[in-house]
């Protein structure tokens, strides 16, 4: 039996006015194990705390019950006081007799009676409290950023700025992501490459940043502060350390008919290629699907022309293993596939393009050198129709239920740029709603209408039909004038919905983070913790968490970096000691607890047990990682054998409270 001290607070008159505090102290003094029971005006004051500290020393207390305000208010105050007097802070319990008693009741007799019962419950619980120590878990001072788009680059630069090492893993041969493909940015119309490529160079030159391009995360083990990650460095058949990026091999390569992904397949590249002029790292990559040397061993031109001998046809995928303290996910987005939208004739007509393809068509480094020409016959288009919400806001199986957020603005940008450069072009934009919340966004859209005379039509395109004369028939509704329009267009541009990258879901499984039904990563709190995942040590950056434009992505990238830096600054993490633990002798290894754990804190280990007949048996038992466990207790109820229990809120403690209340 513990030696327990009870301290009843008056809280001025807040408690004392409706609860007879003297009577409470008197009644609780007779409870088993209670050696001292006192009341005082303000228990949380300096002198009140000293009262507690002195009593702990004087009476050699093994448990303290404070009858006062809510534990959400002063639990930490009293825990600290107890700790300074040499008592384990987790041997302090609070009975809430203010918010849940004196403030809500008026009758002194019944309120006093209830306060005594609440005090008894706390005493019953504190008898079963065990001293708990917060575990310290070391932090590896290195961060991993998954994805090398603008989100990942920004995050990596900010973390490196704080002096920590960062690795970027990018699955493409170059970092830069979608922003590198974009021509101009709204609402300022800066050239995207002009503001992005300096950042890419900065990332490659920063001594703290290591870029693993053409690599993918293969496996993630561990927990906050201590992740072990396997990274597959895919074979690019070029020695990264030797290649100077001179580009001679790409010129001489005889296989020139490979669709160029960077230009959205609108032109061709060679089998050995550098995605674009400012690629980082500027290293060639051989595409094994097209390289004749790799396919049938006949060619080898690139290896002959390479002056530094960087070509290596025998290169294999390599797997490297690194330790990280924090992981930032920045896997980004892709436009959806349009296979299910026959009505827009995307697959039938080359002049029906997506907005990202239009970015390349208009880009000075694009297939037409910046002149807007129809992909089919390389003539100037004179009538262009933009269709908004293609696949966004769809409640059917074809599209996505959410608003893709960026399309209204980039369409206004495209329309404006086309009208600026080619004033003889008629531009129609079919919209359902124009959504422009953002700084200078609505002004930008109004400029497209008022200054550039872009025809915004409220309505939707129902059907796109390629015609034999090369025109494209567009049938659409104009809801405001209540008529059906038939436009003979030269080009149709579809504002396609965006979706999270396909690699995000397997990654979420590896990281034990949560995703919504659209495969966007779920943040720990939609308002107050928007850049953290619910799993400790995993942060979210950019469009992997939801559709975002560039400024928002950069803001979130920096926010995620700040969170990661906050974690990396610590030498060790203090973990909440109220975590689950399993009684290995009772555990059956059934996996029930593992399935309900939202944090992936429970794993199974094969453990040797000494049996009564002196043999050794190996059994599979649950093992909780206290650094990952947040102490919700879901597993304790799921456990069929009762092996799982939660420190600080154990089964016996809660039962004791129930008993004390019902006595």
């Amino acid at each position: 039996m513990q030696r327990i001290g009870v301290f009843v607070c008056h809280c001025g008159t807040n408690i004392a006015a409706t609860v007879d505090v003297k009577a409470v102290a008197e009644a609780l003094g007779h409870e088993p194990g209670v050696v001292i029971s006192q009341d005082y005006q303000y228990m949380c004051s300096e002198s009140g705390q000293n009262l507690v500290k002195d009593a702990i020393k004087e009476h050699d207390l093994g448990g303290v019950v404070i009858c006062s305000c809510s534990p959400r208010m002063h639990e930490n105050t009293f825990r600290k006081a107890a700790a300074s007097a040499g008592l384990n802070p987790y041997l302090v319990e609070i009975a809430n007799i203010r918010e849940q008693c004196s403030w809500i009741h008026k009758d002194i007799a019944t309120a006093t009676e209830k306060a005594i019962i609440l005090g008894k419950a706390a005493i019953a619980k504190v008898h079963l409290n065990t001293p708990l120590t917060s575990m310290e878990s070391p932090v590896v001072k290195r961060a991993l950023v998954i994805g090398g788009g603008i989100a990942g680059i920004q995050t990596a630069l900010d973390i490196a700025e704080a002096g920590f090492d960062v690795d970027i893993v990018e699955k493409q041969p170059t970092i830069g992501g979608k922003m590198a493909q974009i021509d101009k940015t709204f609402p300022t119309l800066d050239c995207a490459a002009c503001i992005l490529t300096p950042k890419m160079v900065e990332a490659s030159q920063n001594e703290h940043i290591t870029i693993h391009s053409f690599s993918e995360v293969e496996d993630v083990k561990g927990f906050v502060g201590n992740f072990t990650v396997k990274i597959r460095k895919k074979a690019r058949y070029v020695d990264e350390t030797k290649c100077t990026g001179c580009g001679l091999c790409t010129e001489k390569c005889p296989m020139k008919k490979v669709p160029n992904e960077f230009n959205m397949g609108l032109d061709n590249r060679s089998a050995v290629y550098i995605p674009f002029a400012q690629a980082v790292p500027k290293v060639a990559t051989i595409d094994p699907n097209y390289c004749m040397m790799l396919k049938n061993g006949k060619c080898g031109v690139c290896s002959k022309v390479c002056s530094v001998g960087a070509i290596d046809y025998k290169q294999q995928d390599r797997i490297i293993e690194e330790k990280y303290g924090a992981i930032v996910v920045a896997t980004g987005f892709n436009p959806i596939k349009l296979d299910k939208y026959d009505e827009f004739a995307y697959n039938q007509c080359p002049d029906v393009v997506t907005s990202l393809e239009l970015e390349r068509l208009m880009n000075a480094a694009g297939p037409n050198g910046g002149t807007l020409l129809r992909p089919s016959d390389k003539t100037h288009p004179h009538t262009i129709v933009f269709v908004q919400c293609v696949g966004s806001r769809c409640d059917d199986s074809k599209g996505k239920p959410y608003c893709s957020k960026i399309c209204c603005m980039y369409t206004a940008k495209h329309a404006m740029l086309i009208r600026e450069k080619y004033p003889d072009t008629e531009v129609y934009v079919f919209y359902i709603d124009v959504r422009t919340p953002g700084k200078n966004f609505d002004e930008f859209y109004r400029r497209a209408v008022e200054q550039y005379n872009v025809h915004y039509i409220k309505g939707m395109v129902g059907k796109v039909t390629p015609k034999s004369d090369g025109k494209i028939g567009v049938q659409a509704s104009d809801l405001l004038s209540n008529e059906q329009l038939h436009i003979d267009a030269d080009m149709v541009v579809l504002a396609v919905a965006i979706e999270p990258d396909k690699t995000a879901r397997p990654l979420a499984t590896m990281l034990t983070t949560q995703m919504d039904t659209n495969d966007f990563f779920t943040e720990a709190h939609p308002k107050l913790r928007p850049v953290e995942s619910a799993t400790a040590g995993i942060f979210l950056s950019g469009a992997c968490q939801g559709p975002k434009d560039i400024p928002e992505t950069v803001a979130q990238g920096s926010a995620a970096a700040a969170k990661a830096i906050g974690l990396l600054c610590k030498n060790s993490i203090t973990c909440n000691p109220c975590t689950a633990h399993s009684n290995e002798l009772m555990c059956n290894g059934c996996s029930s607890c593992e399935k309900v754990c939202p944090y992936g804190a429970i794993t199974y280990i094969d453990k040797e047990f000494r049996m009564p007949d002196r043999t050794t048996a190996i059994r599979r038992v649950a093992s909780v990682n206290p650094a990952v466990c947040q102490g919700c207790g879901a597993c304790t109820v799921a456990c069929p054998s009762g092996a799982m229990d939660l420190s600080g809120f154990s089964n016996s403690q809660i039962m004791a409270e129930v008993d004390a209340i019902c006595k």
Partner: protein
Amino acid sequence: MNKNLKEQVLRSSGVNVLKCMRCGKCSGTCPSYDEMEYHPHQFVYMVEKGDIETLMKSESIYKCLTCFACVDRCPRGVQPAKVVEAVRLAAIRQQDGNHLSPDQIPSLLDEDLPQQAIVTAMRKYAK
């Protein structure tokens, strides 16, 4: 507004008109748009408002070919053609005369009746 009529149309069509986000793709895709006084998106909106008697009096309910282009392309899955069909049904029921025997049909056939109308009359039961 006739609440009973609205309820009847909603039930017989099985359509939730509140899902409509007013994009107008149904009217954009409709092949008999120019023949109709009220267009597919108006059908959906007017049924939502409960203004069904106006629709019942309009010729538009007989101009819909039930080609189901709007049903196929509606991004919200509203199925406007089924709304039109339900209004048409309400009109027929009100006149108390849905008594056409199959033998009468050949004599009633019109030279100008589009083939599509006959074909789709069957199709609407398949969807």
